[in-house]
């Protein structure tokens, strides 16, 4: 672990945090509308995985996708413009919060139906195998999606055909407002692949080093042709399921406890300081830079116009 690497992780996680905080504010101001699912608290997963994956690997996820597309390398300007429904958005303002895609960085969305991205990710892995390109498709889904039938249909085919897919369950403890104890007959979600002969492992999703290490191991296993693997990354979202969620199903103390003791960014900050890789002052400066970058994204979006009405009927058929 060198200084440069750690500072990169810090910067990338903080960008997602600040971007999402700003999104929450803009939602409150009415500049972002509809469903908006924030990624705050879960940043270590996508950033850790980004540094475990190779560039040509692909990723696909659910509607909680801002963190994924930012970690993938999309310029925050275009993500923010999409959230604000502007023509300069990464989906030209036609997708919104839940439907973001970044072909250049192999990010395949951004899917609004719980669990639907799981067979899609399995199909992207099918293409990898068909084309023998050695790439893996990292397919993210939440603890809530675990109970969708198509997830098991995918597990079966992926295992049967030894497809290069890494399933990452982002277990943030709540399927909307229903806790994992209340929605799942068992809470060790990494074992849900057992009957499909898919090995699984539980990982501390608040620890970027644990995420990266487990990701690297899993990707190595999958790339060797052994078929899929499941990583259950236990994490926590600080904010509601979406912006309209008051969070009455859990206590403030519970949220604060996670935030105070297990925050992935604070944890990394401590390490950076302890190792003398950065001073408080350095980190404050990074924060300033990132806030400025997010502000720039907001200004860009505000100054962008809404999509041209002529775009209404484009992109329906190729």
């Amino acid at each position: 672990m060198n200084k440069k690497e750690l500072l990169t992780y810090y910067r990338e996680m903080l960008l997602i945090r600040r971007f999402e905080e700003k999104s929450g504010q803009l939602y409150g101001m009415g500049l972002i509308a509809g469903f908006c699912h924030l990624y705050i608290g879960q940043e270590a997963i996508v950033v850790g995985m980004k540094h475990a994956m190779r560039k040509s690997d692909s990723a696909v996820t659910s509607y909680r996708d801002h963190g994924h597309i930012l970690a993938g390398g999309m310029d925050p300007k275009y993500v923010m413009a999409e959230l604000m429904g502007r023509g300069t958005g990464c989906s030209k303002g036609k997708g919104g919060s839940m439907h973001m895609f970044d072909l250049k960085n192999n990010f395949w969305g951004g899917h609004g139906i719980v669990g639907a991205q799981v067979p899609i990710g399995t199909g992207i892995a099918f293409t990898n195998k068909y084309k023998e390109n050695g790439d893996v498709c990292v397919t993210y889904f939440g603890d809530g999606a675990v109970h969708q039938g198509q997830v098991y249909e995918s597990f079966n085919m992926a295992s049967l055909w030894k497809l290069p897919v890494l399933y990452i369950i982002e277990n943030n403890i709540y399927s909307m407002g229903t806790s994992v104890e209340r929605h799942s007959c068992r809470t060790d979600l990494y074992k849900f692949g057992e009957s499909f002969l898919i090995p699984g492992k539980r990982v501390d999703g608040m620890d970027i080093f644990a995420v990266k290490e487990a990701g690297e191991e899993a990707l190595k296993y999958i790339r060797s042709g052994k078929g899929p693997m499941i990583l259950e990354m236990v994490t926590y979202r600080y904010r509601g399921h979406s912006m309209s969620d008051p969070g009455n199903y859990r206590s403030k103390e519970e949220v604060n406890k996670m935030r105070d003791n297990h925050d992935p960014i604070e944890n990394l900050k401590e390490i950076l300081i302890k190792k003398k890789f950065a001073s408080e002052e350095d980190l404050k400066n990074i924060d300033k830079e990132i806030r400025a970058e997010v502000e720039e994204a907001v200004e860009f979006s505000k100054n962008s116009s809404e999509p041209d009405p002529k775009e209404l009927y484009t992109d329906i058929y190729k």
Partner: protein
Amino acid sequence: MATITVREALKDAIAEEMRADKDVFILGEEVAEYQGAYKVTQGLLQEFGDKRVIDTPITEHGFAGLAIGAAISGLKPICEFMTFNFAMQAIDQIINSAAKTYYMSGGQINCPIVFRGPNGSAARVGAQHSQCYASWYSHIPGLKVIAPYTASDAKGLLKTAIKDPNPVIFLENELMYGRSFEIDDEAEEYIPFGKAKIVREGTDVTITAFSIQVGNALLAAEKLAEEGISAEVIDLRSLRPLDEETILDSVKKTNRLVTVEEGWGFASISSSIVSLVVAKAFDYLDAEIIMITGKDIPMPYAHNLEKLTVPQIDDIVGACKKVCYR
């Protein structure tokens, strides 16, 4: 003149496109070792191997989603449903993922896939295995919907479907697979979508139909001719996009319209055609329009009840006579 069955024509289309493009593959239940539940894929496994002709588990939602993932990431899947009745398990993936991704991604990600299999009334299989989904899929922007009648059309349209960069719903018919047609030497290799075909010219009444009901419409037209009524029969072939021009031109000529469809009449292909004609050719109509559709009930099993449910030749004849005031 040489003939070919619809089954052979479909298989030829798939085989030719698979030979031409190594990214085309076919998956579905029993398509490989079993040689196809209805034998459409006979011989494909032997020619192309198990990498490109893939037996799936019985898992429609899963394999449709997997095929969509493969399509958006660079392959050209032909996804066979043993029948479209089972595709209801997969309809979320077809509509929410296949049809909408191009739009939702602002034109970044297209989905070149063909969903095909038998659709419509089968014979004596009851309500869950005997249903027409033409209007269901035709409702959806982002999908193209094709329903051929002749063998040559089946081949030329399927070849176009496989080459199309969009998701295509290709509706076949179980009762048509074994039917032989003369090979149409004039047919284009790739038949364009959105073009209906006038399969019998006439002057007194227009009949629109698609898939197996084109056969009934033609037989009805013959009966009508015996009674001195000249019916024009339009094989729609392509339901989305729909060839509005051919329908309107015909109605402007005959001034009368009877639509034929196996599906239920409410919110149907027929009702869309009626709304089209009323909106754009109202002044040309000399009589009410009659929609001959499946009866508004789940398909019964008993032979007599089943026959009463599905449009019959005499229903079409009766409707045409009525609009001709005969």
